[in-house]
């Protein structure tokens, strides 16, 4: 068996929801059935085989090729299996992901991993704004699993995040962890202004102070926090800077906030 591969015949002019092209939905379907799946391209309705060259037969291993930056909800809601995007992906990658893995060799659009509850998403490049964040109208953003970003993250990373981990190898924008409820975000590069705005609980792990700190985030001093050794050990072997952290280097400067909303969240700045 070979990977079920969807190669774009040409870059779509408008956004296409491909959430239904995931391993669970395609399991057991004949090639003709898959080809006949109806997709919405803007206000037009097209068959999958009008949009893609479809090859392969292993629905547990799905590959998207071509300029996929207009493809929305890649791997949305999948429970197992693997989805690969060779190149850039559009917004909502892995929305509501329950299990399995999604790998994007390029960058992903906004709201990557929103509502994700399990599994793992690897983005080699950048992610747009509100990665792991809640889409408008939702009370919670990411609620489990691991989002690994090799490049930079946009603003509002982890907005209303409820659980899970987001690791960013590059920089992150403003308002990181805004309205965060729980979970862990680590940023290896620089961080924009006003992280932890409205943050109730959860942990931001940084290598340096952010560009601008909120006055409602308070300094609690430098401490050795034992849970970090377990956390770092769990990241061992991951690609990027977090896979090689010294599990014994657990002393951090601890800031708590946002005191305006209870202040049980924390920013941990590594020494």
């Amino acid at each position, binding site marked *: 068996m070979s990977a079920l591969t969807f190669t774009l015949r040409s870059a779509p002019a408008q956004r296409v929801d491909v959430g239904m092209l995931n391993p669970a939905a395609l399991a057991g379907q004949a090639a003709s059935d898959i080809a006949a799946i109806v997709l919405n391209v803007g206000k037009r309705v097209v068959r999958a085989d009008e949009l893609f060259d479809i090859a392969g037969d292993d629905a547990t291993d799905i590959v998207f090729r071509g300029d996929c930056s207009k493809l929305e909800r890649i791997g949305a809601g999948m429970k197992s299996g693997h989805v690969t995007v060779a190149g850039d992906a559009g917004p909502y990658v892995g929305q509501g992901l329950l299990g399995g893995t999604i790998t994007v060799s390029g960058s992903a659009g906004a709201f990557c991993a929103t509502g994700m509850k399990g599994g793992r998403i690897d983005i080699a490049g950048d992610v747009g704004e509100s990665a792991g964040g809640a889409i408008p109208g939702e009370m919670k953003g990411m609620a489990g699993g691991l989002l690994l970003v090799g490049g930079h993250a946009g603003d509002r990373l982890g907005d209303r995040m409820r659980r899970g981990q987001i690791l960013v190898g590059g920089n992150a924008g403003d308002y990181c962890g805004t309205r965060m409820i729980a979970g862990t975000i680590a940023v290896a590069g620089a961080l924009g202004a006003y992280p932890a705005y409205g943050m109730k609980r959860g942990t931001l792990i940084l290598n340096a102070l952010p560009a601008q700190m909120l006055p409602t985030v308070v300094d609690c001093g430098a401490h050795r*926090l*034992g849970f970090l050794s377990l*956390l770092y050990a769990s990241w061992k072997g991951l690609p990027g800077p977090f896979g090689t952290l010294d599990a014994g280097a657990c002393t951090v400067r601890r800031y708590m906030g946002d005191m305006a909303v209870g202040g*049980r969240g924390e920013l941990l700045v590594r020494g």
Partner: protein
Amino acid sequence: MIINGVAIDDTFAEAFGMRGIRLIITAYNETWALHSANALTGFATSVIACGAEAGIERMMSPDETPDGRPGVSVLLFAVSSKELIKQIERRVGQCVLTSPTSAIFAGLDEGDPVPLGKTLRYFGDGFQTSKQIAGKRYWRIPVMDGEFLVQDTARMVKAVGGGNFLVLADTQVQALEACEAAIVDMRKLREIVMPFPGGVVRSGSKVGSKYKALSASTNDAFCPTLRGATKSELDERIGAVLEIVIDGLTDASVKKAMEVGMRAVCRIGAAGGIRRLSAGNYGGKLGQFQYHLREILK
């Protein structure tokens, strides 16, 4: 059966089904991990009055512990799940939470859940925070030296308590030295503890008493000073009897510990004043497990 001049009685040790758990205590250094472990396993010799039987299983190097610090593995046993849960809450709360730099983790991955940090977290008065790491939940409770890290839930398993053997010797000192040698060898094993002081008990008991309030009393048949006054199990050469009691996570681990201990005693042999090996039982009517000495040593 006679080994190196030591007569092996044709009898068996009778042991009971218990609930057992392994916990891992870590600290800044081995000394403080041991302080905490010693407190946790203190006053835990017999379920008759202590609520639990416990002991230190082994020391753990930093590369073996969850948080990369020196640690101690301890085993606790109780007669029921409910009692074990109660004992763990009390002992961890009073002996580990209180101990500087300590942290505590589950030592078993399988079994029935036992609240560990799940209940202790409330000590944090709302400042406690939880973290899920690699599928396991931990609690971080702020304390005066930093944070107390405790795993949310540990696991308990069906276990065995009360494996035993009796060492019958010419003198008290000879019996004691033989038991010390046995304990040294037995402590190299995993999954077992010998819960009495130094691993050895001198006050073996029988069921019942002439006093209504007592459920157990001295095992007069093995008391050398009563040899002529009671239905004694001792001949005129026996001057002292000591017992080693073993609790283990599995039937096999208790059996192995008994074998290792008895063989260590037999190595000392008659030349060292050891005359007999026997075992405590209740006629096979009470315990789920029977360990026949001659079968183990054949």
